[in-house]
């Protein structure tokens, strides 16, 4: 894929530990503005490390050995575990307002108003306007919405999602995915979406990269890749998605 102006370009990225054990090797990735790319693979395949290296958030002991990352955009990240990503000792609205204050450079009062608007657009309860609450007093889905709001407060041009729905229930998972999708349509940011769930990745992303043992082994347009997987590992991944029969809605469902 050639493009004049990719928003993010990763070239020959290699990450490793001090003992020269390569965890990610020779990864190339280009993200166009407004595009959504899925990184799929099993645990330990280097998906999250690749994502974290974009922000320079590598865990201690892991270094970038070669390659370069050209980032022309403003990145924000959504983490897997919403409770771990929030400060447990700070009420959520203040926490969000703080991000707005520093990133959008507005007054304290304005930052709170913007924060509340963001929360409303993400479908959080109105009661937060009167009484601020701590992360532990909210459900997992609500916390994840706060984390998304914090990411949006940075006005990102690329949203990095590290398994944002893995810790959530199926019904909530669907809501969060819908929110991210509709926000993307509205605000037009690019998404890099890391997940091990091929079904979610294929519903979110236009392009998929399959990772295994630190390498991208196959990439392509979502539908094309799923219909015509070349690599046996990709075929195995596709087969391991458990199918569900089609449902019919009966007329008289009990409430």
């Amino acid at each position, binding site marked *: 894929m050639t493009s004049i102006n990719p928003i993010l370009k990763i070239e020959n990225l290699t990450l490793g530990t001090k003992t020269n054990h390569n965890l990610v090797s020779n990864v190339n990735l280009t993200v166009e503005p407004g595009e959504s790319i899925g990184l799929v693979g099993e645990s330990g395949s280097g998906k999250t490390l690749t994502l974290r290296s974009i922000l320079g958030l590598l865990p201690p002991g892991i270094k970038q050995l070669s390659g370069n990352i050209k980032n022309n955009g403003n990145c924000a990240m959504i983490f897997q575990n919403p409770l771990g990503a929030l400060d447990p000792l700070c009420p959520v609205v203040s926490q969000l307002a703080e991000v707005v204050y520093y990133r959008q450079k507005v007054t304290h009062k304005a930052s709170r108003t913007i924060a509340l608007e963001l929360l409303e657009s993400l479908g959080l309860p109105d009661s937060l306007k009167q009484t601020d609450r701590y992360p532990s007093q909210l459900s997992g889905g609500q916390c994840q919405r706060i984390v998304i709001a914090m990411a949006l407060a940075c006005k990102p041009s690329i949203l990095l999602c590290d398994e944002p729905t893995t810790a959530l229930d199926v019904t909530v998972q669907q809501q969060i995915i819908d929110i991210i999708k509709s926000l993307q349509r509205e605000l037009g940011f690019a998404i890099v979406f890391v997940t091990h769930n091929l079904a*979610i990745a294929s519903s979110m992303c236009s392009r998929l990269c399959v990772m295994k043992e630190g390498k991208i082994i196959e990439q392509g347009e979502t539908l094309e890749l799923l219909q015509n997987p070349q690599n046996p590992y990709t075929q195995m991944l596709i087969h391991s998605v458990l199918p569900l029969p089609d449902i019919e809605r009966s007329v008289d469902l009990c409430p």
Partner: protein
Amino acid sequence: MSIALKVENITVSYGNFIALDNVSLEFQEHTTLGLVGESGSGKSTLARVIAGLILPDEGQILLGSQTLSRKRSREQHKMIQMVFQNPDSSLNPKHTIRQILAEGLLFHNIVRHSQVENRCRELLFRVHLDESSLDRYPHEFSGGQRQRIALARALSVEPSILIADEPTSALDVSVQLSMLELLNTLKAELNLTMLFISHDLGVINAISDTVAVMRHGKLVEINQKERFFSHPETAYSYELLSAVPKMPISNR
């Protein structure tokens, strides 16, 4: 078909929170019952009540024809075994696999001392692990292998009922499938009755004969698998089923 286990009007509350509200359920012998629901719906509490790890406030459990009293006998405990969600925390990191497997065998007098070694090998063979694993420690295995060890330990005492509480949710999708296949073969070989808990409907579809849906501590729907997945009877089940992300192509 006879009933292997019967749960009658079980109520459990944690302080003011009612975790299980008057739950009744029957388990047909040699079938798998899949229990689904969101987190906090009381799935795991029900499993723990059946395993005898939590005492219910009200209600009773019948194992075959005998009522399980508040204090269960060793034999009754033996009949119901459980595999937990996270193999990291359910296996003792300081014990070798031999010690882990032998403990249950000796405690319940399943085999004589001299036979323990042989039986451990057989158990590992059943879950497709190499017998050289016996002298290794849990941290030397992958998540999927550790879950197999936990399964071997549960099966070592020859239970009639196996409770699997989200046994695959800590595992990768690729490993998940092989774990489900293993559970299915073992269930057939050992004539087990199984309670399988998961929030993943794809997993439930792959393994269950009957599906029960829980919400807010109540049983919402109990139905045959085929019927549940094609014609759910309650609005909540429909909502659950339609929330599952689907592949844009058919993969079978």
